[in-house]
């Protein structure tokens, strides 16, 4: 019934152009159309945060956005944050502090945490828990996620000071 739309996105710095039905959910665009499989589908009902990506500077659950809404947007996924050869301080901290067990929630966790630390470079434990409340983890009990984010914050602040 509905026609395909011409969609333009920038994902992790790369321009993408394709035709898609407007009803396509952004998480499927990323995973199945663009083969960007870092963002995961956990609940698909905007609760779990596994599909979190950054869109025009906001943390967004990509299961709750139509690709049509994202037309023209600048999107960052976990793939744009770091890679195996150059881990982001948050990725390094999650590894060092056991911030993950099964790892399913981790791409969403870290993507959300990059934005949290951008807005609040020195969060308290309470601020981390509140700021990460849109991301669910069923393994860690959150304790080591909080520790990882705190460690990454210290690391990033130290690196920033050293650079100044």
């Amino acid at each position, binding site marked *: *019934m*509905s*026609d395909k*739309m011409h969609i333009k996105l920038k994902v992790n710095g790369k321009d993408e152009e394709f035709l898609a*039905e*407007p*009803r396509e*959910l952004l998480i499927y665009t990323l995973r199945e159309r663009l083969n960007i499989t870092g963002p995961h589908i956990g609940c*698909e*009902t*905007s*609760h779990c*945060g596994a599909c*979190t990506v950054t869109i025009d500077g*906001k*943390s*967004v*659950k990509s*299961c*709750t*956005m*139509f690709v*049509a*809404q994202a*037309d023209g947007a600048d999107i960052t996924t976990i793939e744009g944050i770091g890679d195996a050869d150059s881990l982001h301080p948050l990725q390094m901290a999650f590894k060092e502090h056991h911030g993950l067990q099964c790892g399913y929630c981790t791409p969403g966790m870290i993507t*959300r945490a990059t934005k*949290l630390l951008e807005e609040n470079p020195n969060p308290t434990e309470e601020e981390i828990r*509140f*700021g*990460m*409340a*849109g991301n669910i983890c069923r393994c860690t009990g959150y304790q080591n996620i909080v520790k990882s984010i705190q460690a990454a914050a210290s690391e990033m602040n130290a690196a920033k000071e050293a650079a100044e």
Partner: protein
Amino acid sequence: MIPAAFEYHRPKDLAGVLSILEEHGDDARVLAGGHSLIPMMKLRMADVPHLIDLQNIEGLDGIEIDGDTIRLGAMVTQSDLIDNAALSEIAPILKEAALQIADPQVRYMGTIGGNVANGDPGNDMPGLMQCLDATFSLLGPDGSRDVEAREFYEAAYMTAREDEEILTGVTLSAPKGGYAYEKQKRKIGDYATAAAAVQIVKENGACVSASIAMTNLSDTPVYSEAAGNALVGTAVDDAAIKAAVAAMLQDIDPTEDNRGPVAFKKHVAGVILQRAISRAWSRA
């Protein structure tokens, strides 16, 4: 989850929105942050053949403070409400309530206009806007009109807004006195089991005015004039709070659901209102 197909519109101005609404009537719905409508579309509980995305409409995302008058554009997000220092100064209850809505990701997207226009009894802003005696601006083919928040809600998802109208903004006077938005929920991101919005003005140790509204305890938000009146003229002592809670319980009409049976909801409503009044009074 795959919603039914729809035609997507992204008009550049309100005239464009109105012409699509006029052409398609209740086959068209406007989309603000989408965090109520999109889940409903995914579940196929909402059928929207024409989806009108408001993201490109200019002038809907402003927070204007002019003396005592606050005007919030419909596309102002919960996170905008939280981050606006001038607004938090003049109307701190807005930030207190917004911080209790959903989670960070949802607050970046969810808007004040969507929250009040949707008519979901679980939404927090409708009760708050009734407490603050806000006015909603509606724009339709015959021009604009204002409807008071206290007159806007008819039943669950049924409001005074006509199909061909769009809610463009919310206007309110700077609230006076002490405030509290208290919400009981099962977990972060949940709707309220019960929530209470309270503004109280204190003069010479006595309450001179009080406004109270409750959330998710009926098929509409509940502004309880009687509960507020029970506090006026008192020192907001235990007896007065008890009287206000008793009056509120006469006005709500909760139904049993997965948040509990009616007796439990009434109990929680009483506890939440008592806490909200005490906290508002301590700030008055």
